[in-house]
């Protein structure tokens, strides 16, 4: 792997993958979009300005656009219409544990569809990209408090849905 793309991938692949995976219906789609994110990032790496924000926020911003483009191409399908699919190979424990965790993950990711688009976005940025509230605020162009509230309301809705289920 080339040095630049290798370093970028090593530093940010988990956060990009997790964010994209939380926003898309399948591993295959998430792989396509994650690959596209790094290609785009390498194309604009020379324009990255540290004074405008962290590298993490920058690459997550690219991931947001790539994800939006994915759904635009899939239009008019609903971003939350497809039930998320998970694969056991992502878990490192035994097959039985993996099956249980897969089921839980599928359930939780499926419940994300009950959130509004912005709540789902904020939850994916918080849990997937692991951005702080101020970073989410910067990426979504809202205040840190508004970002925190979006996550809070999103998680609250998930709690209600899971309690009902």
């Amino acid at each position, binding site marked *: 792997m080339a040095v630049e793309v290798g370093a970028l991938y090593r530093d940010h692949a988990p956060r990009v993958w997790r964010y994209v995976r939380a926003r898309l219906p399948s591993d295959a789609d998430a792989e396509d979009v994650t690959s596209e994110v790094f290609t785009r990032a390498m194309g604009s790496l020379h324009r990255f300005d540290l004074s405008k924000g962290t590298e993490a926020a920058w690459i997550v911003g690219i991931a947001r656009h790539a994800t939006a483009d994915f759904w635009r191409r899939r239009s008019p399908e609903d971003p939350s219409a497809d039930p998320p699919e998970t694969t056991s190979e992502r878990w490192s424990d035994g097959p039985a544990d993996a099956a249980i965790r897969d089921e839980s993950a599928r359930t939780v990711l499926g419940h994300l569809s009950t959130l509004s688009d912005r709540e789902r976005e904020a939850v994916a940025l918080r849990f997937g990209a692991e951005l702080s509230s101020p970073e989410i605020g910067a990426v979504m162009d809202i205040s840190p408090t508004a970002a*925190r509230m979006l996550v809070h309301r999103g998680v609250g809705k998930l709690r209600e849905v899971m309690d009902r289920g």
Partner: protein
Amino acid sequence: MVDPDETFDADELAAAERLDAQIDDVLRGRVSPDAGPEVLLLASAVRTDPPSALAGRVDAAHERTMRRRWRPFRYVAAAMGYLFFSQGFGNIVWGNWVADGIGEDFSPHLTREGGLALMAVGVAVASGALVRRMAPVSVVAGVPLAIAFGIAGIGEIGVFAAGAVLHITQGLVGLALGATYWTYRYADDRRDTSGGHDEEGA
């Protein structure tokens, strides 16, 4: 939906801040007794590792992009290398004719050594057409010299037609070499940044 201008209820705000701290704890792998099951499940469900094959796929996609962007540079570097090499060779073989053309005394020793140097520059410039990491060598070796020749070629117009054509061509190809290098290294490829978003502003 949260309105950016919305004023929040103090209790809800405090709950959001507590949740934020719990999420921080969970994401850092610390035990957070207050964290609800939905927080733990979300963290577990979302925080999966990328598939092992993805790194290779990203690398292959990047490699394809760089090769595609390098292609125009290759052609220009090859042309530039050929021009320098053939000029050097021509000076060695037809130095007397060149000296006559520009009305100067022929110096076999200087012409031969200058010709060899030009052939070496030609090889250095052409190396960027064959090996991608040699592209900066092509630019450093070729562009300044080509532009200098191009300027000198203007003075040969009306004096020595062959020399004027060669040098002005070298100057133009030198500019093209610099431009294609810039495109290869720095310009955005719209095919890579489809959607036209300002990704810097993210």
